[in-house]
């Protein structure tokens, strides 16, 4: 049975899903120079579920995602106001070590970006950054990470070969394995399947569903079917604003806002 939209007080639904909250943005504003890219986003992301951000190109969903591991720090001329919390702690506090944060909050990018080195060295890259693991420990991490990303069986006999020889879909799973190797708590995925064919996309989605018991996952996607297939919660962005946020089923079947309705029905975007 579909809930009636008017019964739910929108603000409650929009801001706080039930259960443990892992990530939270509070009144987040972002400026690229004079351009107001994010206009006061407040959103709480539940632990160990998949939260999808949808919206047309340029709506700010990727920019928003990149605050949770402070990848926007890399860009010149960006200003931010508001708070982002990881387990209730502000990630903009001056004492925070950004490298530490990124270890806890991993990211998978739109285009697969394996390093031009062997499959083994790609996975071992993170663990080697954060310590000097023994050879047998490293072997174990590499195997577990590749198994975790459902890639082990395909590459176990060619770990020493260049990662650039893999197919696009395999490369993207390698990048996921590479993130798993540093044992993060959160996975941010920025359109992880948009450069892949349908079969590879299917593999990635299957993988996400398998990983969600252990990791809090946020995914940006321009593919609405993907959002509806994998996510438990969905937020709809438009022109730098979070228009609506709630359980995925309700967002797609019974949106409260006219603009959300138009978008999920494919009337624009």
């Amino acid at each position, binding site marked *: 049975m579909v809930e009636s939209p008017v019964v739910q007080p929108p603000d409650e639904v929009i801001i706080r899903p039930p259960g443990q909250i892992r990530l939270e943005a509070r009144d987040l504003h972002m400026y690229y120079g004079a351009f107001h890219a994010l206009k006061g986003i407040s959103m709480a992301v539940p632990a160990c579920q998949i939260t999808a951000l949808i919206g047309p190109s340029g709506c700010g969903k990727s920019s928003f995602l990149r605050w949770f591991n402070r990848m926007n720090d890399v860009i010149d001329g960006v200003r931010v106001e508001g708070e982002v919390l990881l387990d209730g702690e502000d990630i903009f506090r001056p004492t925070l070590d950004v490298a530490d944060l*990124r270890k806890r909050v991993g990211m998978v*990018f739109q285009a697969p970006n394996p390093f031009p080195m062997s499959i083994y060295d790609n996975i071992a*890259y993170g663990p080697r*950054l954060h310590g000097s693991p023994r050879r047998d420990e490293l072997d174990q991490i590499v195997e577990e990470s590749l198994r975790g990303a459902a890639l082990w069986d395909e590459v176990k006999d060619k770990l020493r070969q260049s990662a650039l020889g893999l197919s696009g879909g395999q490369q993207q799973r390698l990048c996921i394995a590479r993130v798993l190797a540093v044992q993060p708590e959160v996975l941010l995925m920025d359109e992880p399947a948009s450069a892949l064919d349908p079969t590879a996309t299917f593999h990635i989605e299957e993988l996400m569903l398998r990983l969600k018991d252990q990791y809090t996952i946020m995914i940006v996607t321009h593919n609405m079917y993907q959002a509806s297939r994998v996510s438990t919660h969905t937020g709809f962005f438009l022109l730098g604003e979070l228009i609506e946020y709630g359980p995925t089923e309700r967002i797609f079947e019974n949106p409260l806002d006219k603009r959300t309705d138009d978008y999920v029905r494919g009337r624009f975007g």
Partner: protein
Amino acid sequence: MRIHPRTAQKIAFALLYLATGVVALTVVAIVLLMLLKGVPGLSVALFVKGSQALAPAIVGTLLLVLLTAVLATPVGVMAAVYLSEYARRGPLVRLIRLAIVNLAGVPSVVYGLFGMALFVMMLKFGRSLLAGSATLALLVLPLVISASEEALRQVPQRLRDGSLALGATKWQTVRRVVLPNALPGIITSLILAVSRAAGETAPILFTAAFFSLTDPYPNSVFDKVVALPYRLYAMSTEMPNMPPEQKWATALVLVLLVLGVNAGAIAYRTHLRRKQRW
């Protein structure tokens, strides 16, 4: 009157083609002239026989160039890493870049005088291999910096992002991802920059070069050296009795040396590019 687009296109093509042809023809003309005039003067005796032998000059030039590379590489590459990876856009960085561009435009004879004042006299290196190489290093530094920066920029941003997102610091990212992937480009640019130093006369005129009849090989970096470009210069201006085919042969050797080094660098780069895909 309106020219038909197809006619205009033909005229434009012809002009562009002509411009390219002029450049190519100049190179061919220089090399042909060198070969025609120089080859008759080439002989084993030219290289090894007597006080006028070329061998010491070739050795001297190679030593100068080698030491120049040793001096210019660390400074140039580190400056390039700073500019490409660390510097944020701002007035200071703009000023630094402007300085580098202008440094590249300073005439080489000015470098020679500056090198004499700084290295030969103030730092008391004397006229020596070291003073000459240090002067040449200053001369090629802008080339090394801009070429290395170019090589660093060729490394895709997504590799840096991937490394940073795994919790690497900026320096770890530079050392483990950016530099290894930029290295082939940096090395070839170095060779090309340094081969330019091989042909320069003015910077070593007051700082390193001499014309020895008895003991032409340097024993330490504080000895003077005989160098090919300076020899050619001295032969042409101070030795009216020198047979002309010997001068041409010397010029040919110098050109072949520089072209050889360049060709080697380009072949090496082509080889690496074929291996590299990202």
